[in-house]
């Protein structure tokens, strides 16, 4: 089983965790879980948006660690910069919708948004 980039030097096993992809992928999945937990259990609209932000952090961590492991940092950074621009625009539109919802109903509770039943 390969884990990390192990180098054996004078009887001591060193693990290079920064360049390891699977270790960072573990943290990416943890951030994903935290974000999904927020989306499933919180009721304030702005909290839901914070949950999506945490998921986006996990995705950027996964992208950069993948490009670090494959030794092509510049491509990875280009992808991350594009993704951050997308994330900013999505957050801006979502906040505009939230402000409009607040003007209509006067509260930020997602349980008040049950008119449509899907």
């Amino acid at each position: 089983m390969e884990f990390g980039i192990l180098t054996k030097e004078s009887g001591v096993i060193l693990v290079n965790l920064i360049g390891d992809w699977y270790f960072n992928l573990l943290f990416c999945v943890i951030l994903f879980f935290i974000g999904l937990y927020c989306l499933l259990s919180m009721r304030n609209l702005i909290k839901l948006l914070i949950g999506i932000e945490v998921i986006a952090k996990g995705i950027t961590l996964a992208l950069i660690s993948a490009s670090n492991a494959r030794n092509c940092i510049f491509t990875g950074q280009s992808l991350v910069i594009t993704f951050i621009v997308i994330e900013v625009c999505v957050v801006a539109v979502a906040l505009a919708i939230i402000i409009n919802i607040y003007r209509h109903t006067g509260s930020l509770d997602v349980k008040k948004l049950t008119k449509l039943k899907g």
Partner: protein
Amino acid sequence: MQELYLISLCALVIFSILAILLKDLLKAALSLMAASVFLAVIFFFMKAYYAGVFEVSVVAGLITVLFVSTIGLTKGEADVFESKLPTIIFPLFFIWFIIIDILIMWVLLSKFPPLHKGIPETGSFGEVFWQKRTFDLVAQIGIIFAGVFSVLALFRKKDKNG
């Protein structure tokens, strides 16, 4: 160096947990900003300097400003009543999830082939960004237009019966 890297990762996770569990929205937005700063530190460790700078300036700067201004604009008399149950149960779920996830990933490690390091890239960051991913940049112009026009459409003045 390794220890600093591990501390940054743990701080990122801890501040993200704080961001979703804190009841006061302002403190939640500020802990999200702290998490962004630690993520930028992680980017610096992986030699992704431009991405780190972008992360600090845009996510920790611009998005936090957007959040704080929205929180200021929507302060109402009736605050949202969040039940305490998710906050109390969360550590349980979290530890259970970490244990199951580490087990699964340990088992799956044998099924994923090891990544071999590819050919290092030629040229500078500017050349790769502008020349190899130009189509993405054209699409980014579209994204910015879409975002700006959507916000304009959502905040427009209604004249007669719109």
